[in-house]
């Protein structure tokens, strides 16, 4: 081989080597190793191959230490930022109807949406356990890509950490999100007033039940799927029909009961629920019966509780029913002046009982 002594860099071989050095590499490993979190080439390959390629957008592709974006178009959409963060540590990572990736996008999108905000930008931080199959990460990232596309948001920055085997459970994801709240929209749990109606967009407890079954610790077989879904466009429909919504919250961990207790405490009002109006699937009720659980406390990932003045209740309900995520919407209760800070449930027998805050997790009973 002849190498030019005058300008070796122009030599075809060296040029080829330089091309290879700069080539965007694919992750060749089958499992995550500590090298993928080392800050070196393996990590860069992982980020490029799995995250940048999936979340592709102009802001992320700059690969700066931060995402920067122009404020002018944001200011045209509203006058306040909504900013939120959440971490996802679900086990198993994949379960009927959804997975941790979709959950991480929709959860943060929904936390923004219930303030009335239009979700725009998300971050994505992952903590990977050494030994996690790379294929699992690929599936999760692809799922996040699809969920972000559906929700109309961009994942613009992120972080990757790898911890020793046993220091984390497979994969944890944190997502933060920014959205813009339109002018005139003022949604807060403190706005709730006696006489307001309480509306939910469908069946409760499907996600919590799907996770319980997916863990495989119960010898139960059902076709229940998680209700994981983005709610931003349903919220748009609601606010379009009735900008005067008092409060909205997605009923995730802790379920419907926890959200309503938070509402009652925040606005110092009472809440009365009607048991017969609360939509619960037969299978969910069945699992609750077997394990001694209460569907009111089971987690959801696509359920929205809306509180609105009674005079607007039918308008909001009609608007919700026109949306696929709200087709089963119904009024489940009312806000009452007292007892303050308390949620009551009118049972199907006409009796009334308290629906209290949960103490710890719900624990299955022994018989």
């Amino acid at each position, binding site marked *: 081989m002849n190498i030019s002594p005058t300008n070796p860099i122009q030599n075809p071989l060296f040029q080829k080597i330089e091309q290879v050095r700069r080539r965007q590499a694919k992750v060749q490993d089958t499992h995550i190793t500590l090298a993928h979190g080392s800050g070196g080439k393996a990590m860069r390959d992982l980020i490029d191959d799995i995250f940048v390629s999936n979340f592709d957008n102009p802001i992320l592709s700059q690969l700066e230490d931060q995402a920067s974006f122009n404020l002018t178009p944001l200011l045209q959409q509203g006058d306040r930022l909504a900013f939120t963060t959440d971490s996802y540590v679900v086990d198993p990572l994949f379960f009927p109807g959804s997975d941790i990736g979709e959950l991480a996008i929709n959860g943060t999108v929904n936390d923004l949406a219930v303030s009335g905000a239009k979700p725009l930008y998300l971050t994505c931080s992952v903590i990977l356990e050494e030994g996690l199959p790379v294929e699992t990460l690929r599936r999760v990232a692809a799922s996040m890509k699809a969920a972000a596309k559906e929700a109309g948001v961009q994942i613009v920055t992120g972080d990757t950490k790898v911890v020793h085997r046993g220091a984390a459970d497979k994969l944890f994801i944190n997502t933060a999100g920014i959205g813009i709240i339109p002018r005139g929209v003022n949604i807060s749990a403190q706005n709730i007033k006696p006489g307001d109606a309480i509306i939910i967009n469908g069946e409760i407890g499907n996600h919590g039940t799907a996770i319980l079954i997916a863990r495989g610790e119960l010898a139960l077989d059902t076709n229940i799927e998680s209700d994981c879904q983005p709610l931003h466009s349903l919220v748009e429909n609601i606010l379009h029909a009735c900008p005067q919504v008092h409060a909205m919250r997605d009923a995730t961990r802790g379920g419907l009961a926890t959200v309503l207790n938070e509402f009652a405490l925040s606005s110092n009002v009472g809440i009365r629920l009607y048991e017969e109006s609360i939509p619960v699937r037969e299978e969910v009720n069945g699992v609750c019966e077997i394990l001694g659980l209460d569907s009111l406390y089971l987690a959801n990932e696509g359920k929205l509780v809306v509180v609105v003045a009674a005079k607007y209740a039918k308008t909001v309900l009609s608007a919700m029913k026109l949306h696929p995520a709200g087709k089963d919407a119904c009024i489940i209760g009312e806000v009452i002046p007292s007892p303050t800070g308390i949620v009551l449930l009118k049972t199907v*027998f*006409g009796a009334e009982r308290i629906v209290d805050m949960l103490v*710890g997790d719900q624990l299955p009973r022994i*018989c």
Partner: protein
Amino acid sequence: MKYVDEFREPEKAETLCCEITKLCNQVEKPIKIMEVCGGHTHSIFKYGIEEILPQAIELIHGPGCPVCVMPKGRLDDAIAISQNHNVIFATFGDAMRVPGSKTTLLQARAQGADIRMVYSPLDSLQIAKDNPDKQVVFFALGFETTAPSTAFTILQAAAEKIHNFSMFSNHVLVIPALKALLDNPDLQLDGFVGPGHVSMVIGTDPYEFISQQYNKPIVVSGFEPLDILQSIWMLLQQLVENRCEVENQYNRIVQKSGNTVALQAINKVFAVRDSFDWRGLGDIPYSGLKIQPEYAQFDAELKFTIPNLKVADHKACKCGEILKGVLKPWECKVFGTACTPETPIGTCMVSSEGACAAYYKYGRLSTIAKRTITQKPKITQEPLPACGFSSD
């Protein structure tokens, strides 16, 4: 839901309440009924059954919550076993928050003990098979309802020659507890709603002494709202007709002589202890089950060194009186203040099936207190309003 919704129909409940009200008028005195089982207590509060009953009926919530009656000392023993470095301690979920004298299993797990929640004792046997280098201990507790499944698990462990598995037996028996209650002069009851799940195993025959020796009627009941209402109606019929019998409302599940196979398994694996300490009720003779010497290799009490100390209930705690119906939960000085589901002091606040926990969790105390004051002692002779299904 098939076979569930049928037992929750409001119209049928209303009809039953009307009939109960008519019978109440014929008895012409306040009626005290004890539901023995924690599952009944839970249903009564969850569905608001007490609220739709005539005010002349007072329900007393008995000692049938299996985790509530676990004494602190035994919890301490369980925690001590779990803290052995080579042990995986398996337990049902609702035992996790039951307080010992210093801590709970939940807290012990946070401090490093390998404590795992299981849904069945067989799950704990599987853990033993999966972890041959560990000792797996199952926290066996409950009435006769759960004793058969733990007995079968020991039989299976013996058949499969699994040597790294044992049980810490805290099974208790319902009949000695009922007898202890009936022997207590403070207790003034008109009848019992008998436990459905326990009776599925033991049958209804063992309750004959209640009607024959103590002249109290008992109706073994299912757990759905209509089951409980029908059982109360059956009890009232006995009272009106001056009968004292053992009746079986839950005959779709419960046989007169119980489940022979389950009873045989219990008798094969377990022996009755001379005495067992009950939280809130103290020592009750012949009320607990220990593992037979033949299966000693599966007895955690022999396999591990445990403190085995008896720890007294808190002085301020009035659980014993509440279980006997002498006091209502809110008449205990620590109820809802020092003693809450987050920080339970007494037996009745421990599980949601306990009386105090049920009152605290579900009960509108102002309404309940008002109702209790109103109901005593006057019984109206006039036609009652429409059956207690008030709109507010």
